[in-house]
């Protein structure tokens, strides 16, 4: 048998992605671009929430959106109708985006005339949470029909998110959704999470969400250090 030798590596599988994500945050900082990574289950209302968000902020911020899906361009078309810059990313079957794919997306979007770039990640509560995309902040949408127990079932997603938008609050009377329990479970996983109840269909709560986003973008542009 041929002689072999063993090279020790001792490196997390995610280490190379984490390095690339950090490098991207530095590059975004230099350019003054804020990148938001928006995650959720399929059907939670990401695209509708984005349309409302763009309406609320389009007079103050130049917004660019990357819509990531396994296939189709229906979401990018819906966003383009708002007048915001939008591109569709196809993950080719992959269940999440990593820093490398996000960088390619940002290159495709073009950052010269963008203050706020939003990545609409693949609809999935598991895999996107594992991979740092290089975003400045992570947000996720939990919709009322999904149930208030999701933070218990998908702990990592709620641990990595800075903001949890609880969407579709207009249908609360028809579901056994307990907002107080939901808050308790989210804060159990992430004591620093901000929880904002919204209804993307009617626009309720969007002001509070837009205020948060506006303040974060301003802080990122003004902050000297990361």
């Amino acid at each position, binding site marked *: 048998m041929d002689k072999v030798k063993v090279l020790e590596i001792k490196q997390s599988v995610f280490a*190379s992605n984490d390095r690339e994500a950090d490098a991207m945050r530095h590059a975004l900082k230099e350019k003054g671009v804020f990148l938001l990574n928006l995650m959720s289950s399929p059907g939670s209302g990401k695209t509708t929430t984005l349309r409302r968000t763009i309406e609320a902020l389009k007079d103050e911020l130049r917004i660019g959106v990357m819509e990531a899906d396994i296939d189709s361009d229906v979401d990018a078309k819906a966003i383009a109708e708002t007048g915001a810059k939008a591109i569709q990313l196809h993950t080719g079957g992959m269940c999440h985006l990593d820093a490398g794919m996000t960088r390619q997306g940002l290159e495709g979007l073009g950052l010269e005339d963008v203050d706020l770039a939003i990545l609409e990640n693949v609809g999935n509560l598991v895999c996107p949470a594992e991979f740092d995309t290089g975003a400045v902040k992570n947000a996720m949408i939990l919709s009322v029909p999904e149930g208030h127990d999701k933070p218990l079932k998908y702990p990592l997603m709620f641990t990595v998110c800075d903001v949890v938008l609880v969407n579709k609050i207009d249908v609360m009377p028809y579901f056994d959704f307990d907002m107080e329990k939901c808050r308790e479970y989210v804060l159990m996983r992430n004591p620093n999470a901000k929880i904002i109840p919204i209804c993307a269909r009617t626009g309720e709560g969007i002001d509070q969400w837009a205020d948060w986003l506006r303040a974060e973008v301003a802080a990122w542009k003004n902050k000297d250090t990361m």
Partner: protein
Amino acid sequence: MHELGIVFHIIRSVEEVGRQNGVSQVNAVTLELGEVSGVLEDYLQDCWNWAASKSDMLRGAKLQVVVIPAKTLCENCGCVYPTVAHGRTCPACGSGKTHLIQGNETMIRDITVPEEEEPEPPEPPAGTAL
């Protein structure tokens, strides 16, 4: 759930280390996988066989998985218990204030490569100033 993405990252990292070390062929990669890392070994092996065959350096390389058992520490009574059997609630005192201390790893431990055929470069002669 996202085994293919994990496999791509392993291959990228191993190729990088391989290039730094002048390695052209890798025989095996050892991965430490936590019991509750959410990565399933069967799926991982399937993805590995497919993706490794597309890499010049890793074609035919084996993926050896070492499972790290999951253990949780109870912050209330200090007991350490097996996570898979008891979840987040301490079996000794019933407290929910617990945290995982190991078992979430996805760590590339080492790679096995063929020993070079040619002899090591000779030692510089004794007394040579550097």
